[in-house]
């Protein structure tokens, strides 16, 4: 009798299953999944809030899926999403190749999918909302170069530039580095060869690399970070060396970044940082949401297209004009 227990229970379960499966599916409102990988920086936090709040306001059911930096987990989450009948997916994965694979998965199942801010390596599939990283970076660096020219005129010495590069598997990081290099190229006579620190988007790695570089060359006076979240790390390295000074001071290191988060906004206001390239996170969120909701309404299963966020550079010079439209400054003011 004891032996039969497992089998009889199994049989019961099977029966129960059949009953449940035969039940008609509920008629539901639209459901959109937002699959992301941790919200480790202010930019992602703001983006996440923008997307989720807007969707909820429009009466769409949002399923939030945090992949936790685990590619397999995110894959399972997206597959779950598709299997559970999502009407649309908004995705940010860890690297361009994962994005391509997940976009292909969604399109194979005829679920409209848009990638948010991080583009897949294959730009032809899916709705791709991305900032024009090269342009934004270049603009930010050009604002820094204005300061560099002034310094060069005063001292006659070439500046020593350094760039904190992001994870090269992230296409955005690649583009930002390109923008930096392009800007420097057009003013090559001002600069020595730039030092490159590959941070892999990790502040510990950035800290170690920056410390080593500044120790090796104490004259580094022009630093660009591929993302604003590394400013505290930069401060941690420069301040003990007496190089964390406001603009105008002789020891001021020309600093620039990218994102436009509240930290950068504050530092620009205070004068420590010279410029930052702003990704308009609210615009990008809107672009992603609009295109998904559009596709759902029109019944498009495999919408494609690249939606570019042109972005702009926020600097100490144009702070009065551009400050109010920078999302980071908006967040900062809301906190007060």
């Amino acid at each position: 009798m004891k032996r039969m227990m497992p089998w009889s229970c199994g049989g019961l379960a099977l029966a129960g299953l059949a009953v449940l499966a035969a039940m008609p599916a509920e008629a539901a409102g639209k459901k959109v999944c937002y699959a992301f990988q941790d919200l480790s920086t202010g930019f992602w936090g703001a983006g996440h809030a923008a997307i989720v709040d807007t969707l909820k306001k429009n009466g769409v059911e949002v399923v939030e899926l945090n992949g936790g930096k685990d590619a397999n987990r995110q894959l399972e989450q997206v597959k779950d999403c598709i299997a559970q009948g999502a009407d649309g997916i908004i995705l940010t994965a860890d690297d361009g190749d994962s994005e391509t694979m997940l976009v292909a998965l969604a399109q194979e199942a005829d679920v409209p999918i848009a990638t948010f801010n991080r583009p897949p390596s294959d730009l032809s599939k899916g709705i791709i909302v991305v900032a024009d990283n090269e342009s934004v970076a270049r603009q930010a660096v050009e604002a820094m170069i204005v300061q560099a020219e002034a310094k060069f005129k005063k001292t006659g010495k070439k500046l020593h530039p350094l760039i904190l590069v992001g994870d090269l598997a992230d296409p955005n990081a690649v583009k930002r580095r390109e923008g930096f290099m392009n800007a420097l190229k057009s003013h090559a006579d001002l600069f020595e060869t730039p030092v490159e620190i590959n941070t892999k988007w990790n502040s510990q790695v950035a800290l170690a690399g920056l410390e080593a570089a500044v120790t090796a060359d104490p004259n580094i006076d022009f630093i660009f970070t591929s993302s604003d979240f590394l400013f505290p790390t930069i401060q941690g390295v420069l301040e003990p060396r007496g190089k964390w000074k406001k603009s105008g001071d002789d020891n001021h290191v020309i600093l620039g970044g990218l994102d436009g988060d509240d930290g950068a906004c504050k530092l620009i206001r205070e004068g420590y940082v010279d410029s930052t390239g702003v990704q308009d996170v609210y615009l990008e969120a809107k672009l992603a949401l609009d295109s998904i909701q559009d596709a759902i309404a029109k019944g498009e299963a495999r919408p494609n297209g690249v939606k570019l966020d042109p972005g702009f550079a926020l600097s100490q010079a144009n702070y009065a004009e551009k400050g109010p439209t920078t999302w980071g400054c908006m967040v900062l003011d809301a906190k007060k």
Partner: protein
Amino acid sequence: MGGDSRSPAHERLFEAAAIARDSRGSIVNFFRRILLSEYFILYLTIFYFLSMAAIFPDLATPRNISNQLSNVWPLLAVATGQTLVIIILGIDLSQGAIMGFASVAGGFVMATAADPNLLGGSPLWGTVLTEGGGWLAGRSGSVLIGVGLMLVVGGLVGLINGYFIARFRMPAFMVTLVSLMLFSSAGIWLTQSQNIVNLPPEFTQLGSGDLVSFYFGEKVEATIKRRDILSFLTYPMVIALALAVAVEIMLRFSVLGRYIYAIGMNAKTAAISGVPVRRVIMVVFVLSGLCAAVASILYSARLGGGRPTIGAGAALLDIIGATVIGGTSLSGGRGKIVWTLIGVVFFVLLGNTLNYMGLSAFYIDVVKGGIILAAAALDVARNQLLAGQAA
């Protein structure tokens, strides 16, 4: 020697324990019997599924079930190996690292193209890996050899583990921990933390290709939407089940299986009775490495890349958790692959429902950890009960 001569000894003792408790009232008695049953995990899984399905009806759709099953197979493959190790009173912490390292090895062989910007920093760039791809890029048989190399890598790491544990009597915990650190770092170093993508489709289909699929519904359209096709028999399913069945047969019916159980129950007695203890320990760890390699094949195929991070992080939680909650005892000498299968199904189901509840990754891991703790406590309780009931 008794009428019911085929029933396992433990089941009889559990029955005896249950009858002994008869005086305590039948409801408590009933729960005790369920709790102590060998198939407790099966009952728990069914109960959990039915109660969760009542709250989230989407859980019980054939589509979801088919989807969840696809997550079961790779975990089953690797947990099969861990089951063997736990039966001989060891543990293999390096399985996750083996998965990553083997994945990288496979990528180096099979990749059909490689981006110099990403992988140019690899120590193997220019020699094994070039812009045109990996070592055997594009050549026929590259998948076969790539898969073969992944298995060899898994077996070799297992052999290294087994050698140090058997020969030098070092604790399995320590040895496999060192392997974990060594080989996960090796994988990351070889790829400089990048993923090797562009794997040939013959390989990636191993991760999700269908052999038999179902479609529910009327045939109104000329073409059937892909999402409505439910995978039933897939490559990962066949591979993982074949592995599990082969290992279970080995455990139950072969001399090696007997040796494994004997060593787990009492290694001293086994040694004196002529069991080649050292050799068996090495074999078990080699098998564990091989199982991890098979899982690596399935995971790499479905993720489409040679990734050093496969199996990193909380993967061990799933592997060991599924094995322990399936009923394989941490005190050794007791375990079955079929139990691990049910344990894996339970874990996947658990993860699925926790996703439904929208819990963040952190809370999911906390819950899983709690379940493993409960499973270990149940194991201890069962052992104590058994000890108390014997003469």
